Structures are given as C-alpha cells and as structure tokens.
C-alpha cells in the first residue's frame, strides 16, 4: 500500500515538473534573428534525477561491511626519491611543491618526463607529457594489440613492484586520439592504449581509483598511475549498509557521491548494481574507506549509446557519525 502511494506521489511530482518545464520553455530567451520555432524546446532538464529504468536485479549483500581507516598519505622525500628512481628520473630533475601535490619535472631527456604525487591521497602519476597528452599526427602510431598491451603494462608494473597481489587486470581501451575533419574526409588516429587494473578489498572492488598504464607508439609506456590509497588492513569496525532498494531511492533523489555536469537523457538504463569500496578523488582527503553502491548505466542520444556510472553511498551518515 505504502509503495503504491509512493509511486503515485512520484508520478504526480514528475507530471508537475513536466508542466512547469513546458511553461518555462515558452519563456526561453531568443537570440535576435532566430525565431522561437528554430529553437528546440528544453526537454529532459530533469537530468540525472530523471528517467532511470532498472534493467537488472539487485545484488545480494550482507547486512554489515567493514570500514577501513586510511594511512596518512606519504609524500616524504624518501618516497618521492623512490618513485623518481623507479621511473628513471635524473638526479638533477627539478622538484616543486604546492598545496595539492609534489611535482618533479625531468628535462634532461627529450622529451621530458613528469611525476606528480598527490598530497591528500598519496596517489601518483608518471608521464611523458609530449606523448601522453594527445598530439597531432598524420601517421597512425604503431600500437600493440590489446593482449600485447596488457603484457607490456603488467611487466612494467611488476618490474617496479607497483602491482600488488590484490590488484587485478580489468581492461584495455583507447587512451587518446587525434582527428582531422575536412569536407571530404574524417581521419581519426588512436594515439595510445590504456591498460587498467582494479583493486579488491576482501573480494569487493574499489570504485573511483585503480592503477593504469598508457602505451604509445611502438609499445612505449608513456604514463603510469596509481590513485589507490593505503589503508590499515584491520577494519575500524563493521557498519550496517543500506539495502540496494534504499540506494536506488537515493539515486532517484540525486543523492550521489559525485554530481554529473549534465543531463538531457531520455532514459538511463541501469544494467548492473554492485557494492564497492569508495576511494575519493585523489585531490580530496579521506579518512575512512566505506562501502558504496555502483550503478552501471547505459544511456544515449538517438542511436548513440553512452556508459555512465552513478555512485550512491551505502552507509547512512548516522551509522558513522562517531568516525571523525
């Protein structure tokens, strides 16, 4: 009974929003020289909170899960020097520090390389900017196959002791592209491939952090990064988690870990729901690592499809208010 009332109430709210939006549409600002009929109406400005469609079953989850405390990030000279050595930086490479990070630039080689260590997370990124960021070309770089890319990345990380046992291969995908469009042609070059690895904590995947390697022309590694945070292996304690149904309701009310900057989707199809552990954006501080629901979604525009993720905290704030 309560559920029906809720559904009817929700439908009335949506209908109300549509009526308001139709009214607002007629008040759109119009640029001189363009008639109202030339402008598309504002359609689904309900954005992320709007048209979710559940197309999967909910996962079976335990009532409680452990919470872990992070180890204060290490950006001491010792660690910076260890990373410098791992990536072959010259002893004379220039280092600088800001509120957010420690940066080392090595201009002794051509092209130069760069290392960033993030102070709030301990995450790091090594790259060769000239080859890692997309550049212009008229020749398709010689990229390895996906299998070769995986082997190159794995070997690279193992040689540097940067691939812990609880981090597993996830996927190979494109890392950067360059395109040139003319009236008669459109050429798109793949410049790098990205190999991603994901960490699991007691069999539960970490969301929003991982290890990745980018591979460019002739199999050269042009970037290696880890956004994983260190944490104490012993849980602080166990916390009760929301049910997947409760998390779904939070999703509908837009109570998200990160808000997307858009919307306009006619429909967002939820294809998978999993429980994971949330690691914050590497520039943010984080004291505890807690469970989160990850909603894998497929959406799009016309025939184009797009994969998007939505993350909802699996822990009610009242459960962890004693954790400061």
């Amino acid at each position, binding site marked *: 009974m309560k559920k029906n009332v809720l559904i009817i109430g929700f439908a009335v709210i949506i209908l109300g*929003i549509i009526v308001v*939006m139709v009214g*607002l549409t007629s008040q*759109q*600002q119009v*640029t*001189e*020289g*363009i008639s109202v009929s*030339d*402008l*598309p*109406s*504002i*359609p*689904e*400005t*309900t*954005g992320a*909170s709007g048209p979710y469609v559940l197309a999967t079953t909910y996962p079976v989850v335990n009532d409680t899960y452990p919470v872990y405390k992070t180890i204060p990030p290490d950006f001491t000279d010792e660690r910076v020097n260890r990373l410098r050595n791992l990536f072959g930086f010259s002893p004379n490479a220039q280092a600088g520090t*800001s509120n*957010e990070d420690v940066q080392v630039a090595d201009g002794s080689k051509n092209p130069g390389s760069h290392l960033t260590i993030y102070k709030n997370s301990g995450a790091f990124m090594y790259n060769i*900017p000239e080859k890692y*960021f*997309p*550049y*212009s070309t008229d020749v398709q770089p010689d990229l390895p196959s996906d299998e070769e890319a995986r082997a190159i990345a794995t070997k690279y990380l193992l040689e540097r002791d940067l691939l812990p046992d609880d981090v597993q291969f996830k996927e190979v*995908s*494109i*890392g*950067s*592209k*360059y*395109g*040139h*469009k*003319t*009236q008669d042609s459109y050429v798109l070059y793949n410049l790098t491939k*990205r190999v*991603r690895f994901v960490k699991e904590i007691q069999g539960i995947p970490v969301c*929003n952090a*991982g290890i*990745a390697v980018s591979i460019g022309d002739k199999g050269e590694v042009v970037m290696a*990064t880890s*956004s994983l945070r260190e944490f104490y292996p012993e849980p602080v304690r166990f916390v009760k988690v929301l049910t997947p149904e409760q998390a779904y309701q939070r999703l509908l009310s837009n109570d998200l870990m*990160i*808000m*997307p*900057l*858009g*919307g*306009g989707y006619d429909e967002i199809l939820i294809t998978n729901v999993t429980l994971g552990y949330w690691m914050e*954006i*590497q*520039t943010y501080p984080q004291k505890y690592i807690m469970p989160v629901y990850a909603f894998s979604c497929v959406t799009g*525009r016309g025939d184009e499809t*797009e*994969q*998007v*993720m939505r993350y909802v905290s699996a822990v009610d704030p009242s459960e962890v208010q004693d954790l400061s």
Partner: protein
Amino acid sequence: MITDEIRKKIQGVPYHFPPPLPKEERNESKMNVLPESEYVLIESSQSRDSYDELHLYDGANYVSVPLWLDDEYSAYAEFFDGFNATMILRYENGIWSIPTIYEEIVPLEGFVVIANGAQDVTCHFKAEQYQTPPTRYLYEGWSIVGSWDIPQWSARDNFISVVDDWTQATGYDAENQQYETSIINGGSGYHSDERVIYPGKGYYLWMNGPATLVPLKGTKDFQDLYYPQVGVEWVNDYTITPLSNSDDTAIGFYNTLGNAGWVQMFEKGDDEAQTSHFTVGEDWKYIDGVDVALFAGHGSFNITAYWIRLMEPKIVLFPTCEWGDHDLEWIFLHGCHTTKCPENFKAWPYWTMNGVHLVCGFYSEGWDVDDGTRLANYLLEGQTIKNAWFNATDYTHGSGIILRVIGENEACGNDHIWGSGSVISDPPVDANTYDEWWHYCD
C-alpha cells in the same frame, strides 16, 4: 550627532569633491557637507542629438569622443575649427592643462569645453575597420574619462577593468551647469553603478590607485599581449540538479589569471549569467570580448542539438553563438557533452567557431568538481591550452570521463595563453574543417 566625516561618505564610500576648474573659487564651508546633488537624482543624458554630433551648452561642458576621429579632424584645432569657446581644458594626475592645437583628441579621455553659447560640433569618425579599442592609464585620484563606442553601458560594465580601484564617478549636467549625482562602485539607489555612462560625455572618475582602463569591448589583435582579458560565467543554483563547485572553478580560474596580471572583465554567476552574453548580438561585450573565457555548469542536449544550461529556463544553443569574430581565442566549457558534437559549432544559422582557436570541453559527462585554479596555474606555467585542459581536468576526473578539444586547425593545438608561450595568428575560418584531440581520464 552627524559628523562631517559621516556626511562626506555615501553608502560607506568616502565622497570626493570634483577638483575646481582653474581660477574657480571654492567655498570651503560647503565642502564639509555633501552637495545637494547627492540627495536627489540629478542626471543628464547625452549631450548630443546624434552619434556624430556633440551638442554643447553655454558654459562648462564635460565631453569625450566615443570613437577614433578621422585623422583630418582629430586635433583639437581641427575638431573645434570655427567654434566659439573661451577655453578647452584637460585634467590628468591632478593637473589642469590647456591642450595645444595639434594634440589629438582620443577616446576614453574626457575634457572640459567652456563654450560661449550653445553650439553643435560634428564628429568625423574613422571608418569601422579602423576603430580598434583604446586603453588609458589612470592615475590615483581624479581623471576625466569617456566611454568607448556607441552602445550605452552601465558604469559597472564600463569600468570593470578597474573595478578594484574606482570608487566614484561624477558627471556634469551642462544644460543646468551643475554636477550630477555620483555613481558609486557597488552603490545602490540613486548611486547605483547600474546607471548609464553616456557616450560623448566626460565623467570625473576617482581612482584609489593607478590602473589601466580597458573598454569592455575586446581588444582583438591590438593589445592582447599587453592587456589580456579574462571573463567567466557559472551556475550553481539550478532549480533542477543544483551544483556546488561551478563558482569555485570559475572564480578560481578568474582570480588566478587576474593575480597574474590578466584584466578581469566579468564574472557572472547564477542569475547574472545570461544567454545574451554568449550569443550573437551582445557576445562582443562578454564572451567574445575577452581573450579567454570559461563557463562552469551543466551541459545538455536533445535529439537535435547540444547546449549550455544557465539558470532555468535560460540556455545557450551553440548555433546561436559566434565566437572569435571579435576577440575570443579560447574557451573552456566545464559542462557535460559540451564538445561532443563539433558539427554544432559550424551549423545554421551561426558558427560558434568563427575565429575562436580552441573550444575545450567534455565529450562525455563531467563531474561537479573544482578545476579552475589548477587550470589557470597550468596555463600560466606555459602548458599549451589543450594540455592544460587535459592535465587539470584529468587530475579530478576518473575512468569513463572523456575530454575533447576542438581546434579551428592543427596549429591551434600548440597555442599557449598570452604571455606564456606562442599563439598563432587568428586562423582563417573554414566551414568544413576542424581538428580534434581526445583524452580519456584515469
């Protein structure tokens, strides 16, 4: 008890009496209280009947020219040929002077004409293609200034390049020979800085410190390197899906460049962000009136188009924009899917990319995070525009987020911001070509 000190403040801002004209005597006792004009609204409109004519009244007239004068008519002697005047005066750095007959009358500089009877003076302006925006160095204290170009802008907009330094602007009602009610920087009511600065008039402008006055309209290919300009617009306060970090991204970007010497032209947030600031018609005063611009907020789309969302119901459709035909070289669109469809940028009826070198945005969704300060710092460090965008945004965005930069041509990809590296000449605009760079975040 109302003290003299309190009396000589308007809305908390110290009141400054305009300097007396040479040989004009001042009644010191009257200078202990605010003049009558500050209690009632006294304001006169343009002192001319048409854009190319200055109408002068008997007595003192504070005037300026809003455009560059034709070379044959730009010297004082040529401009006032046959005119019956007692005196013409300039005022700069606390000193009155009488210009020589050969000196040039220039925009942004106001001057005083003591006329013998009402008269009209014709302004012979240069052709439009020679009307490059001027700049003017203003000393601490009073200056007499004019506005640039024909449109009428508010004092706030007119003096935005010196917003941290000006406090008071005072016009003169030549018909009634009296000072007008002061306009106060940040003032309200009679003293509101939304009051208009009329082209062709001269205004006393009080500066708390020296600064360079740059017209709101851009300085395309004229003094970009010396007066690079930045402007930002942002929205947090959406009715539907409000955001938290758009202001941080935009203002961080704005202030970081401003602290590095860039001229801050406008920062419009929430309901101040207007469609017209981006679109054909008024964009030259805002987005297309600066060298680099940034928008932070939502992007959106339907089956036929992509657009930027401002506060509901306002949107900015890309085919209603024409960026780069005035000044804009680079724009960062910190919103979802803003560069997903470059075909939108050269579509009917207008070309969004109409001279702009690069449009930096998201192919996929983006996240509501603060990227502005970091982006500005990377630009100032000398990273290329596209690399700075990729680097700064990759810093906070994870797997699944795709960035895309659209360039008018390949060479645009090597652009740096003014003063931090090379910039190519404005590229010819081609209806059918563009170059693009994609970066997948991790």
